[in-house]
């Protein structure tokens, strides 16, 4: 049963890792804008299409 001690220490450390990740994300400003990133990720893929359509107009 004493192996539980090690397991619990490991579990607290893992949880602590998540806590540090959370604190880091707050510090780096990720909690400041909770809307725009969800919009921003929609853009990149379609950019190539618009380039094609641009060349179509030119041709």
């Amino acid at each position: 049963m004493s192996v539980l001690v090690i397991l619990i220490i490991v579990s607290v450390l893992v949880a602590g890792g998540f806590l540090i990740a959370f604190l880091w994300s707050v510090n780096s400003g990720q909690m400041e804008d909770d809307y725009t990133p969800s919009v921003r990720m929609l853009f990149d893929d379609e950019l190539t299409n618009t380039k094609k359509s641009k060349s179509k107009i030119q041709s």
Partner: protein
Amino acid sequence: MQQHCYHCGTACDDSIFIEDKFFCCDGCKMVFQLLDENGMCQYYDLTKMPGTSAKGVFTSEKYNYLDSVAIQDQLIQFKLVNQAHVVFYLPQIHCVSCVFLLENLHKINPGVLHSQTHFEKKEIKIVFNPTEISLKELVQLLAFIGYEPMIHLGDNDWLKKKKVNKQQLYKIGVAGFCFSNIMMLSFPEYLSTSVGDIGNMRSFFVYLNLLLSIPVLLFSAKGFFISAFTGLRQKWLNIDAPIALAILVTFGRSVYEIFTHTGAGYLDSMSGIVFFMLVGRWFQDKSYDSFSFERDYTSFFPLGVTVLVEGKEVNKPLSEIVKDEQLLIRTNEMVAADAVLLTDGALIDYSFVTGENAPIEVPKGATVFAGGIQKGRAIQVVVVKPVGQSYITELWNSPLLNRDKNIDKSFVHPWSQYFTYVLFSIAIVTGIYWWWVNPYNVLPAVTSVLIVACPCSLLLTVTFTYGNVLRHLGKYKMYCKNSSVLEAMEKIDTIVFDKTGTLTNHEDTELVYEGVELTRQEAAAIYNVTRESLHPLSQLITKYFSTQNLAPLIIDNIQNFIGKGTLAQCDQKIILIGSGSFLQAHGIVINSEIQSGVYIAINEECKGIFKINHSYRIGVANMIKQLKISGYDIHLLSGDRPTEKNILITILGSDIPMQFEQNPNDKLNYIQNLQTNGHKVLMVGDGLNDAGALKKSDVGIAVTDQTHLFTPASDAILEGEMVSYLHQLITYAKKGKTIIILIFALSILYNLVGMYFATRAQLSPMVAAILMPISSISIVSLSALLSYSYARGLRPKKLI
């Protein structure tokens, strides 16, 4: 054929087009071409017709002041040789396409290195290379594509202030981490009687718990201790005092139990409560990022002005303007200081300052006041008083306004006082009882009472309920500054309305013609003459006739008298259009008393007058009626002349006190008078002319038709379309207290159960650990449920 502009969606004809796309104006077409050239037509795919109309675009000199180094230093946050950071407030941001376009600025101009938008704050942060694109060019580019930044004197400080409270999030994170781990480690303790073989590990668990609870006590709960301490120093027992006491007692007793090996303590309950209360506070404090409730006059004034020094135009920051300097004010620019006119042609729109509808002609040599907007051609003025001492600023600094609003503390605080007294009485009675029966139980029983009956349920109820109510009001487009506004609204008995822009709709101006009926030829002649003029009233007349399909005519002779009127010959008629005095000066007899409006004379005969009417919002009459039934006193204050008094009486009823021609100071004094007579006043207004009254009133609601327009300092911002639902919204805001009382009754029940165990000195950690989350979670969900169901019940019915 009727089309819609491909760029901005304005209805237009089919004269301007590219391939199959139609545009309302060349401005929109140019923006489209620019985006097309740079391969950014995705802008039009993401949202249909996303643009802002490019009509009436800026004059390029408008941003000349951005060349001034002093102003640049104010705006630019960080600067290297080839890199500068700047943040702009772009109120036009409204859709996905906006984000796309603004974040791809570097494709249009390579001088832009990087741009990032914040949708909810409507901000853009731009990193640019000042050697390739100047700040002025950058602003011009933004303005060209339809996102003209709002650059105002007071805004820079405001942008800096809007920072998310990171400390609060850190505290929640730490408390949540410790709470969940302590809860898990306490689990064996709850079941300790049935599981035999954990004896050795027990002490390991409890010491680890103790270690984990220290950051909760020292860091997460810090705010409660500080607030309680400052309260006590001012001899004021606020709600945080009993909470801080409960946290300390719980921690102390737990430490005692752990070190004497008599138990495992209540560290799980303690950290859980701290966690829930922090979440509650955060929930309540969620603010509306894109609004500012604290704007003062500085937010309304431009950052820079054009000064004439020996005939040359120089750009200066507004704050450096001194007396006797000559300013150049272009069309649609604001008069930035009280000044004397040097040139003719001033047509000043004071609607912002006084609420008066129509622009006023000001003759050469007269004084113009800061806050007016020049509608005519460019004028020159000499500054009489610098900004800081102008008429409108003085109003702001009025001693009547030097008072903190809603200073009466929340009703929760007295409640928590009663609660504390009752709590201490129970603790003392319990202590005395056990002293007689079994002195060994005194300490456990008394501490248990203090642990169980912490008023945190009261705090949770209040924070979550007000948070919910604020959110629901936000859904109905009423944005409150904070929860104390809701409590202040509870006490309101008098409601004061402004007329222009509040009861009427600012954007919906219409002309009403009074006089001899015009024949089609006459109308056509007037239409053709007014079409030539850029005067805003002429344009309104043009719009008035534009639906009648009038024939185009050749104008033989036209003479514009700036700020007065127009004399023209058209279709063998001599046409005079202008103010009453202008017509009289040309020898035309006007039979009735001269009114404000545009007079029309054809062949030396006065035909009639066009009057400006602001249309009243739909449903206003009904809303006033409901408010009267609910027992509110209604008052009306208007900066306008009493021309519409009869209409107002039919809409509002004859029993309402109405005051006309009120200047901002009169309005302020009127509110002050009501308050000294013991009334609690809610003021509904818009514009700078109501600013003093809004600030003075107990609750000031600023009405705006476009949330991106500037609203004066206020307690709440209401969108124009929702004014007619004011009654429902106020009723709902007042429900908050009802909900709190209901839930508080429930939490008393939990407390009674807890007390039952505590006074018998039988509060096991398990009971505490069960009671605490059950009560917290049920309180939070009940609060959400009740505020939601009330909001549903009050959903405004569609008006016909």
